[in-house]
């Protein structure tokens, strides 16, 4: 597996790494399934873990013999998530990956400087699909700040950038704990939603943690 040195001193992410990322995320979700479900049963309907694990298991299987480009890879993920996750998170993640796929059209790799735009495309999809603007205690409260984090770290070395994304994601997911939900199922809880983590925010944090873990390990 070759990695292309990028001008900023980092290495670019190619389709094989993207596949590795998604497959590792699928595995991670199997482990975190119960935890996510537990979170969702406190303020939702208790299926987020099952939804995500099911959808990403399908992603993993479909990527097993994947031989197309980066954009197609994200598109495949999008379609599978939309078809297999269901619930709110299916179309949300599905739209995020759809928009990222569009952004990646014609690209063979993602360099550290590309992450901000890529994440922004995903976040934008979630914002529109979910009709959110931030602060509603949803996964968007992780996606949105990641755009800034990626922009700030655009010149950093890849592993450092990814570490910073993972940390920001975790921090922002934690920050949903104190929010009052005003979108999604949890909004019916009103004040009582305060004090609990948003499950979609946590699964998003996991996505970026796995990104960091996978790509830092890969090829090092």
């Amino acid at each position: 597996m070759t990695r292309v040195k990028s001008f900023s001193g980092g290495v670019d992410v190619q389709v094989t790494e993207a596949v590795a990322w998604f497959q590792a995320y699928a595995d991670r979700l199997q482990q975190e399934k119960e935890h996510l479900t537990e979170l969702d049963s406190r303020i939702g309907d208790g299926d987020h873990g099952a939804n995500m694990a099911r959808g990403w298991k399908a992603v993993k299987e479909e990527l097993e013999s994947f031989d197309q480009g980066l954009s197609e890879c994200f598109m495949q993920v999008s379609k599978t998530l939309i078809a297999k996750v269901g619930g709110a998170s299916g179309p949300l993640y599905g739209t995020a990956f759809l928009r990222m796929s569009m952004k990646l059209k014609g690209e063979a790799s993602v360099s550290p400087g590309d992450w901000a735009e890529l994440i922004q495309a995903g976040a934008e999809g979630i914002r529109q699909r979910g009709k959110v603007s931030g602060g509603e205690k949803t996964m968007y409260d992780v996606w949105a700040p990641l755009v800034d984090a990626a922009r700030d770290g655009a010149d950093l070395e890849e592993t450092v950038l990814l570490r910073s994304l993972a940390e920001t994601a975790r921090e922002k997911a934690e920050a949903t704990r104190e929010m009052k939900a005003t979108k999604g199922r949890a909004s019916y809880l009103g004040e009582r939603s305060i004090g609990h983590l948003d499950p979609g925010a946590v699964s998003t944090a996991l996505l970026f943690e796995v990104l960091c873990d996978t790509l830092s390990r890969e090829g090092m």
Partner: protein
Amino acid sequence: MKKLINNPQHVVDEMIEGYVKAYPEYIKQRNENKRSLVTSRQTPDNKVGVLIGGGSGHEPAFMGYIGDGFADGVAVGNIFASPPPDPILETTKAIDKGTGVIYLYGNYAGDIMNFDMAAELADLEEDIRVETVLVTDDVASVAKGGEDQRRGIAGGFFVFKAAGAAAAKGLPLSEVVRIAKKANSHTRTMGVALSPCSLPQTGEPSFELGESEMEIGLGIHGEPGVERGKVQTANDVADRLLKDILHDMPLEQGERVAVLVNGLGSTSRMELYLMFRRIEQQLNQKQITIHRSYVGDYITSLEMGGCSLTLMKLDDELADIVDYPADCPMFVQK
């Protein structure tokens, strides 16, 4: 919790298989998408298509309501999870007769996103006109003033029935939409839960309730309600549910309603009739006329314990719609 299932991953597909085999004269499954179910009967030309749906686990809703005078098709999701756009789109294509399709489902973020995606695709790729009416009957979910943000629960039965009857009468899409919206705006539900259900995949209860606790307003997917307390008598619970509904939708002496006392899955009919008894006494005392009553399991949450009360306030048009006959696998009205 013990369940008669095989592989938990396949419960929904196996259930659909069983269901379709049980009622071939009513239902067929689309070859193109196994989660798309449509009526196997010939419907009139130009009839507006009525599509209902949502997650599984609410049986007899939604697939039990495909039939004459009711829905033409259903998109089936996983348990308590919206179906993805694919089966919705497939069902839409199958039931459209050139006069458009109405989507009816409960107001949940997940469903809205998936049905909206399907509607966009139906419009863009298939040139099918789709209109959407959301069910928002759950008084417990959002305070007065925020009616259109409320969850959809058992009252969906009346809204689906209204759209189904309007479409069966040959009305155009705009009229079907108007009547469905009117039915929804005239419908209020309040529920009470006594015991949880468990998802086949996890086997875990969907929420916890103490040995002698009940929760007023708990949602049909286990979403928290408005108040938790000790289990009360049927009369007290009925009074409470009715009070909350009438507070939200005041009814004058002389007005007419349709009543639905809906079991959530494991509540005996005996209890449902005890609830109905009290509701009838109270409405009678207020000189509100019960035009028609439904008592039983209409929209469940697997084997959840508890029930809900739904009132639909009737004018002549809605009374007519409620009386319209229906012939579905799990619901027949002569």
